[in-house]
C-alpha cells in the first residue's frame, strides 16, 4: 500500500466516526424527544378527552334528569366542533342510535366507528358505569365510551345509554412550538461541543501524531534520517512512545547501517580476498580483492564452485580436512595453491568459517584468503639477504661463518684448512672520488673474478664478508701445514694478480689492488668467527704495510690491532668529551716579528697524559675519524683566529681524506660564519698527496674557498707527490718547506733542495714558510735567502696552548 485512499486517512475516519456518533446521538435525541412528546401528547389528549367527556357526561345526565332532551342534539353537534372529535353519538349498549350528528350519519363515519367498537366493551361500560377510553393506533384515534343515565326509576336497575366519541389523535410529528428549546439547545450545544472537543482531541492526540509518524517514516524512507522535532514526542499517549521508539529504532538502524557500511567497506576494501558460498559450495559473493588476486570478476564466479581456482597442487588431504572442519561447524585454516584466471599459480593462506544465522544454523561459508605468494617470496628474499650479499650475490659473513663452522665440525685431526681474506685497497678513496655506484661496479667485477677463481679450486667457498672484503675458504684436508700454506699463498698470489688486472668500469679503465690475509685453521682459532676475525687482522696488517700485499696471520697482529682499535675508540670518545686541545705555534718574520700561527692538535688523555698527533693522526686517517677531528680543529682554530689581531694569520692542517669529503667547503664556510673570523687571514695547509688524483674536484673546492679569501699552503713540500704541474694549476699562495730539509740545512745537497724550493716559490710568487727552525744559523740562512720568509720552529716557540700563546704573543702586541 504505497498511498492511502481518501477514506483510509485517519483524519477522515476519525471525522466520520465523530460525525457518525454525533449523528446517532442527535438522531437518538430527536427520536426520544419526539417519542416523549408523542407520549405526552397522547396522555394529554386522553386527559383532554376524558375531562371534556366528563363535562359532557354530566351535561347529558342532567338533560335527561331534567327532561331537557331537546338540548341533546345541540350538545352532540357542539361536541363535533372540537377539532379532534370526529364522531359523537349517544347509543344503546346494543348500538341503537339515540342521538347523532346527522352529517356523520349521512357520511357513514359513525357507522364505521360503531362497527369498530366491540360489543363487549359497550356492555362492560354499560354494566360497570365506568368510562372507557381506548387508543386505536391503527386508526389513530381514541374511542371513548361514556355511560349516560337516560332515566331514573325506582323499580328497576337503570340501563345506561352510552356516549361514544371518536377522538382523532395522530402521532403527529414533532411540535416545534412545544420543544423545550433551552435545554434542547443546551444539550445540542453540549453534544456538539463534546463532539468538537472529541474531534480536536482525536486530531491532536491521534490523527496529527499518526500523520507525523507517517511523515517521519516517509522521510526516513527517502533520506534515511528522521527529524526528531517532527515526531509526536509530547503527546500524552502511546504515540509519544511510538515516536520515541521510532527515533530509537532509526538511531539503532543508522548505527547498524553505519556498522554494516563499515563492515561492508571493510570487506570491500579488504586486502584479503573474501569469498562467500552457499552450503552447496557455490560462490555467492566475492570482494574486489578477490578479483584483483584471481583475475575473475564477481559475475564470472558467482554460482560457480571455488574449485575453478584450484591449481591441483593443494594436497587432497587438506581439502578433506577443510570439509571435515566445516561440516563440524569449525573454522579451517590452511594454505591453498590456487591459480589465477590467466593460469598463474599463487599461494593463499585461507581461513574458512561457517556462517550462522540467528538460530545458529549454518547458512553460508565465508573464506578469507590472504595471498601469501609475495610474502613467501619476500621471506625467501629475506633469507637470501640474510645469507648473501645482494650486490655481489656472494654468501655473506653469516653464511661464511656457518660454512666455516660446518667445516670445523667435519674437520678431523691433522687436517688444516685455509681462509684467505681479500680487501681492496683504496676502495674508499674510489668511492669518495667516483661515488658509491662506481665503487659498487668495482665490487661486482671483483666478485665475479673471485667467483670465477673459486670455480677453479675444488671445494672452495667464496664469500663477501663486507663491502670490499672477500673470503676464500678452502676446506680442511690432510697434509703438512707448511705445504698447505705454500699452496694457499700461491692461490692468493694468483687471485691478487687476477684482481690487479685493470677493469673497465663505465668506460673507464680502473686498476685496483687488494691486500690479502691468510689464516690456517683450526690451529689459530677454533671458532669460525675467530678465524674470520684473525684473517681480517692479517688483512689489516697487509694493508698497513702499504697494501697490495699478503700477510699470514700471526698472534702479534692481534695485539697491534687491539692497540689501534683502542686508540680509535678512545679518540672518538675524546672528540665528544673535550679531551682534544688546540695548540698554536708562532710563525715569525725574518726580523722576529709575529706574523701568525699554525694550529696544532693535542690529545689530553685522561690516563696517559698528552698524546702526540703522530700517535693518533695516522690511525685516524685510515678511517673517516680524521674528518671528525679536522672539523673540530677548524671550528676551534677559527674561534682563535677571530681572537687574533690583524694582520696575524692562522694556518690549519687539512687531511686529504677530510678535504675530499663532500661538503668540505660548506663546512669551512659555516665555521667562518659561526666564528666571525676573517677568511683572508686563514691558511689551509694541505699535503701534496691531495693532488694524486681528481684534481678537478680539489681545484673547484680550493677556488671556492679562495673566493672567500682563504689561502692555501703546500705542507711538507717536496716530500710527497713530486709533480710540479699542480703548482700552476691550483690556486696556491704558499709553500711550506718540510722541517727535514730545514734541519739538514748543513748538508749541501739538502741546502740545494731548500734553495730550489725557495727559487720555485719566488718565481711563482708564493710565500715560503720554513718549519722546524731550531737554530739561529738555520734562521739566518733562510732569512738570507728570502727576507720575506716565514720562520716557524722551536727557535721561536714550541706549540703551546692557546691561552699561553695569547699571553706570550698577542697580549704583548696589544
Amino acid at each position, binding site marked *: 500500500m504505497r498511498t492511502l485512499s481518501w477514506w483510509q486517512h485517519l483524519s477522515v475516519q476519525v471525522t466520520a466516526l465523530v460525525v457518525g456518533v454525533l449523528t446517532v446521538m*442527535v438522531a437518538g435525541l430527536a427520536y426520544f424527544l419526539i417519542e416523549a412528546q408523542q407520549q405526552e401528547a397522547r396522555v394529554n389528549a386522553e386527559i383532554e378527552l376524558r375531562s371534556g367527556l366528563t363535562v359532557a357526561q354530566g351535561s347529558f345526565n342532567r338533560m335527561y334528569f331534567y327532561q331537557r332532551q331537546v338540548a341533546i342534539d345541540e350538545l352532540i353537534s357542539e361536541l363535533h366542533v372540537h377539532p379532534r372529535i370526529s364522531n359523537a353519538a349517544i347509543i344503546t349498549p346494543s348500538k341503537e342510535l339515540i342521538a347523532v350528528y346527522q352529517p356523520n350519519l*349521512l357520511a357513514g363515519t359513525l357507522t364505521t366507528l360503531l362497527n369498530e367498537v366491540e360489543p363487549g366493551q359497550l356492555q362492560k361500560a354499560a354494566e360497570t358505569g365506568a368510562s372507557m377510553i381506548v387508543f386505536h393506533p391503527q386508526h389513530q384515534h381514541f374511542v371513548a365510551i361514556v355511560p349516560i343515565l337516560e332515566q331514573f326509576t325506582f323499580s328497576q336497575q337503570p340501563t345506561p345509554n352510552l356516549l361514544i366519541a371518536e377522538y382523532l389523535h395522530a402521532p403527529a410529528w414533532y*411540535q416545534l412550538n412545544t420543544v423545550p428549546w433551552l435545554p434542547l439547545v443546551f444539550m445540542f450545544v453540549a453534544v456538539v461541543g463534546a463532539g468538537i472537543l472529541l474531534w480536536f482531541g482525536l486530531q491532536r492526540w491521534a490523527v496529527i501524531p499518526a500523520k507525523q509518524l507517517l511523515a517521519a517514516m516517509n522521510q526516513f524512507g527517502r533520506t534515511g534520517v528522521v527529524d526528531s522535532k517532527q515526531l509526536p514526542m509530547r503527546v500524552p499517549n502511546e504515540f509519544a512512545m511510538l515516536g520515541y521508539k521510532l527515533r530509537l529504532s532509526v538511531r539503532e538502524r543508522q548505527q547498524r547501517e553505519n556498522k554494516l557500511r563499515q563492515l561492508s567497506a571493510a570487506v570491500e576494501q579488504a586486502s584479503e580476498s573474501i569469498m562467500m558460498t552457499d552450503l552447496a559450495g557455490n560462490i555467492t559473493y566475492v570482494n574486489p580483492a578477490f578479483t584483483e588476486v584471481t583475475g575473475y570478476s564477481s559475475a564470472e564466479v558467482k554460482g560457480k564452485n571455488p574449485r575453478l581456482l584450484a591449481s591441483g597442487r593443494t594436497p587432497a588431504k587438506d581439502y578433506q580436512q577443510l570439509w571435515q572442519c566445516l561440516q563440524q561447524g569449525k573454522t579451517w585454516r590452511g594454505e591453498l595453491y590456487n591459480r589465477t584466471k590467466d593460469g598463474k599459480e599463487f599461494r593463499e593462506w585461507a581461513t574458512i568459517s561457517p556462517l550462522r544465522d540467528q538460530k545458529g544454523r549454518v547458512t553460508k561459508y565465508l573464506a578469507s584468503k590472504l595471498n601469501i605468494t609475495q610474502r613467501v617470496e619476500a621471506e625467501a628474499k629475506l633469507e637470501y639477504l640474510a645469507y648473501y650479499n645482494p650486490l655481489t650475490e656472494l654468501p655473506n659473513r653469516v653464511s661464511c661463518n656457518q660454512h666455516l663452522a660446518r667445516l670445523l665440525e667435519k674437520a678431523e685431526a691433522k687436517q688444516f684448512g685455509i681462509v684467505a681474506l681479500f680487501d681492496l685497497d683504496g676502495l674508499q678513496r674510489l668511492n669518495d672520488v667516483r661515488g658509491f655506484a662506481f665503487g659498487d661496479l668495482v665490487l661486482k667485477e671483483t666478485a665475479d673474478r673471485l667467483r670465477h677463481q673459486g670455480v677453479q679450486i675444488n671445494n672452495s667457498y667464496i664469500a663477501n664478508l663486507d663491502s670490499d672484503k672477500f673470503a676464500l675458504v678452502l676446506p680442511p684436508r690432510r697434509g703438512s701445514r707448511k705445504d698447505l700454506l705454500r699452496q694457499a699463498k700461491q692461490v692468493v698470489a694468483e687471485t691478487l694478480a687476477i684482481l690487479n688486472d685493470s677493469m673497465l668500469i663505465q668506460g673507464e679503465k680502473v686498476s685496483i689492488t687488494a691486500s690479502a690475509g691468510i689464516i690456517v685453521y683450526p690451529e689459530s682459532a677454533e671458532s669460525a668467527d675467530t678465524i674470520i676475525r684473525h684473517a681480517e687482522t692479517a688483512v689489516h696488517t697487509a694493508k698497513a704495510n702499504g697494501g697490495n700485499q699478503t700477510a699470514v696471520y700471526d698472534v702479534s697482529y692481534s695485539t697491534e690491532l687491539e692497540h689501534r682499535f683502542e686508540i680509535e675508540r678512545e679518540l672518538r670518545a675524546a672528540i665528544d668529551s673535550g679531551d682534544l686541545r688546540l695548540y698554536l705555534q708562532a710563525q715569525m718574520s725574518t726580523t722576529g716579528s709575529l706574523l701568525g700561527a699554525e694550529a696544532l692538535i693535542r690529545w689530553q688523555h685522561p690516563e696517559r697524559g698528552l698524546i702526540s698527533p703522530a700517535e693518533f693522526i695516522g690511525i685516524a686517517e685510515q678511517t673517516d675519524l680524521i674528518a671528525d677531528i679536522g672539523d673540530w680543529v677548524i671550528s676551534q682554530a677559527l674561534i682563535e683566529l677571530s681572537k687574533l689581531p690583524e694582520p696575524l694569520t692562522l694556518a690549519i692542517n687539512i687531511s686529504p681524506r677530510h678535504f675530499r669529503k663532500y661538503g668540505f667547503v660548506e663546512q669551512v664556510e659555516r665555521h667562518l660564519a659561526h666564528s666571525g673570523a676573517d677568511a683572508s687571514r686563514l691558511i689551509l695547509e694541505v699535503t701534496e698527496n691531495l693532488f694524486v688524483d681528481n684534481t678537478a674536484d680539489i681545484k673547484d673546492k680550493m677556488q671556492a674557498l679562495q673566493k672567500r679569501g682563504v689561502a692555501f699552503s703546500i705542507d711538507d713540500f717536496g716530500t710527497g707527490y713530486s709533480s710540479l704541474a699542480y703548482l700552476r694549476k691550483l690556486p696556491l699562495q704558499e709553500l711550506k718547506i718540510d722541517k727535514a730539509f730545514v734541519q739538514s740545512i748543513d748538508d749541501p745537497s739538502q741546502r740545494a733542495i731548500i734553495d730550489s724550493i725557495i727559487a720555485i716559490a719566488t718565481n711563482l710568487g708564493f710565500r715560503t714558510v720554513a718549519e722546524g727552525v731550531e737554530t739561529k744559523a738555520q734562521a739566518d740562512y733562510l732569512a738570507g735567502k728570502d727576507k720575506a720568509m716565514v720562520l716557524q720552529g722551536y727557535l721561536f716557540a714550541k706549540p703551546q696552548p692557546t691561552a699561553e700563546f695569547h699571553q706570550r704573543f698577542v697580549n704583548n702586541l696589544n
Partner: protein
Amino acid sequence: MLVRYLLAAVAILLAGCDPAPRPMVLISNPWLGTAPIINTSVVAPASLPDNLKIIRLVSDSSLSRMLSNKAAAGAFLSLSNALSLNTLSENSYCIAMITARSIGADAILARHDWQVDSQDTIRVGMEDSHLARYVLNQWLQHHGVSQERIEIQALQPQQQAAAWTGHKVDLIVTYEPFIEPLRHRGAKVIFDSSHPTMHVTNVLLVDRTRWQLFEPLVSDFRERTWPQTLKRLAGDDADFMQGLQKLSNYNSEQLAKALDTIEFVTSAEQQQAFRQLLQEDMPKAIAAYEATGAAQQAAVLGACPNIVEQAL
C-alpha cells in the same frame, strides 16, 4: 466542516418534524343556505381543503357560543348575527366570504286566524339571535306594532314545532328548513326576507386573529370547494341532492321550493357582493342593529385582509 455537517443533519431531521397544521373548524347554523356546504363535507369530503372541518350546529345561539369561546375559527352566519358578535367581541372578526342572500328563507309565521290588529300581547317564539330580532323588528316597524306588545319566548329551531303545536306562541321567527314543518302544522308566513325592507345576507365570518393562519384554507374553499358545491347544487347531482334532503328533512319538492328562497353568491360574484355588502347592506345592518337597542354603536365589520380588491 463538522459543524456544517451537523447542522445539515439536524436540519434534515427537524424538517420532518413540521407540526401538523391545526384544523380550521367552521361552524354553521341549520339554515338551508349553509346546508350545501355541510352536504359537501358529507357527500364529497375530498372537495374540502385538508384540515378544514365544517360542523353544523343546531342553533344560532349554539353557533354564537362556539364562536365566542374560540372553539371554532369561523362561522357561516347572517350579517346581523355577525355584526352582533363583532360588536360584542370588540371587532374580533372579519368577513372572508359572502355565501348567500335570503330572499324568503327567513320568515315570521303565524296562525291562519291570527290578526295583528288586536291589542293583545304577542307571544313570539324565536331563537336568541340578532337575526331573529332583526326580522321581528322589521315586521314590527312595517306593521307599526309596538315592542311592548311583544313577549319573547326563546325557542331552538327544533323546539318550534312543539311550541307551535302546543299553542304556546303566536308568532314564530324562523328560517328554512324549519318553515315548511310549521306550514305543515297550519302556520302561514306573514313576513319574510323577500320583503323590500329586509336584507339578510349570509357571510363567512372568521376570527381576525387566526385569519393569517387560515387564509389559504379559506381561499381554497372559496375558489375550489364553493364552486364545486354550487355546481353540484345547480346540476342536480342526485347524491348531493339526496344528502341535502336528508339534512333538511325535505322532499325534493320542498327542497327545491326552499332553495328558491336563497340566492347563492358565487366565487366570481364575491367582489361585487362585497361592494354591495360594504357600501349598502352594512350601513343598513348597522342601523338596524343599533335600532334594536342591543348596542349604541355597532362595530363595523370589514372584509378580511386580501379579500377585497384595492379598487374597493
